[in-house]
C-alpha cells in the first residue's frame, strides 16, 4: 500500500491513490453532487474547490446531505 493515501470518510477508513481529490471522493460516494456538502478536518470545503483539493493522509472527511428531520 506504499504511496496510498489513508483517510477517514464518514467515520470509515478509506484508502485511495495519491492525488485523489474531494471531487473524486464525492463521485465515488454519491450518485450526484446535488445537495451534498463536504467538511475536511472540521472545515467546510466549497464545491468550487473540490476538484482542486487533494486529500492528505489522516484527513477526516465528512460528506453530508439532507435527511428527514424535524
Amino acid at each position: 500500500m506504499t504511496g496510498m493515501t489513508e483517510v477517514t470518510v464518514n467515520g470509515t477508513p478509506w484508502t485511495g491513490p495519491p492525488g485523489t481529490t474531494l471531487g473524486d471522493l464525492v463521485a465515488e460516494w454519491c450518485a450526484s453532487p446535488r445537495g451534498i456538502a463536504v467538511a475536511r478536518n472540521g472545515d467546510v470545503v466549497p464545491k468550487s474547490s473540490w476538484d482542486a483539493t487533494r486529500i492528505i493522509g489522516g484527513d477526516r472527511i465528512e460528506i453530508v446531505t439532507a435527511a428527514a428531520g424535524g
Partner: protein
Amino acid sequence: MAGRSGTVETMDASVPAPPPPSTAADTDLVIAGQVVGSRLILGTGGMTSPQSLRDALIESGAAMATVAMRRVDPTTPHSLVDLLGELRIQVLPNTAGCFTASDAILTAKLAREAFSTDWVKLEVIGDEATLLPDTVELVAAAEELVDDGFVVLPYCGDDPVAARRLEQAGCAAVMPLGSPIGSGLGIRNPHNIALIVEQATVPVVLDAGVGTASDVCVAMELGCDAVLVASAITRAHQPPLMARAMREAVSAGRAARNAGRITRRFHAHASSSFDGMADL
C-alpha cells in the same frame, strides 16, 4: 421595541379585551423580507414511507420544510431534496442533533453549501432526555451565524427573555417550543407564548410539542405567525389526513385571532335579549 402590546389574547378576564381587529384582508407571512407562502411549516422526520411524506407535504400546503444534515448513505438515493424541489417547497435545513454552538455553526455552513441557502433552523440541544434547547449556546451560535449572513430561525424555550435575546442577536424569527420535541403535549405554557408574541417584532413560529390540530389552532389564536409541525403529522396513523387537519387548524386559528375573540366571563351573558318577552 413596540412589539404587539395590547393585541395579545389574555388569559385573565380582568385584563381589557384586545382592540377591535383590522377588517383588512389577512397579510402574508414575511420572514427576513421574504414572503413564505404558508403559515404551516413541515418537519420531514419520522415518516414511515416516502409516499406518505409526499402526500403529507402536498396536503399540508406547506411552502417550507425542514431537513437534517446527515452523512450520505451510498445505498440510498438523495431523493429528499429532489422531492422538495419538485413540490416547490423551500428547504429549511436544521442543526438537529447539535449540542454545542460550534457544531451547530459548522452544520449550518454545510447546509448552506449543500442547498445554496442562507436560511437555517438553529437547534442547539442541552439535554438528551428532554431535547430542551441550551439557551447559552443557542444565543452564541445565533450571533455568529447572523454575523456570517445567515437567516437564523432559532428553536428556543417558551421563555420570553430568551426570545428577546435571540431577536436582539438578529434572528429573523423566534421559534419557541410548546412542549418537548415529539412529545405531543401541546402548549404547556400558553401565557409565555402570548408574552413572546406580545413583545416580538419578528415572526413567532410555534415549534415542537404539537400533538393534534387543536394545539395548532391554539398557537395561532395566541398570535403565533406560523407553526412548525413534524411528529404530529409524520407519526400520525394517516399522515396525509393529519397534514390536511393541521392546514385547516392554522387557517381557523389565524382567522379566529384576526376576528378577535370575546372576553372570558365568569358568569353567563345572554345572547337573546329579554326585551319583548311574552307574559306567559
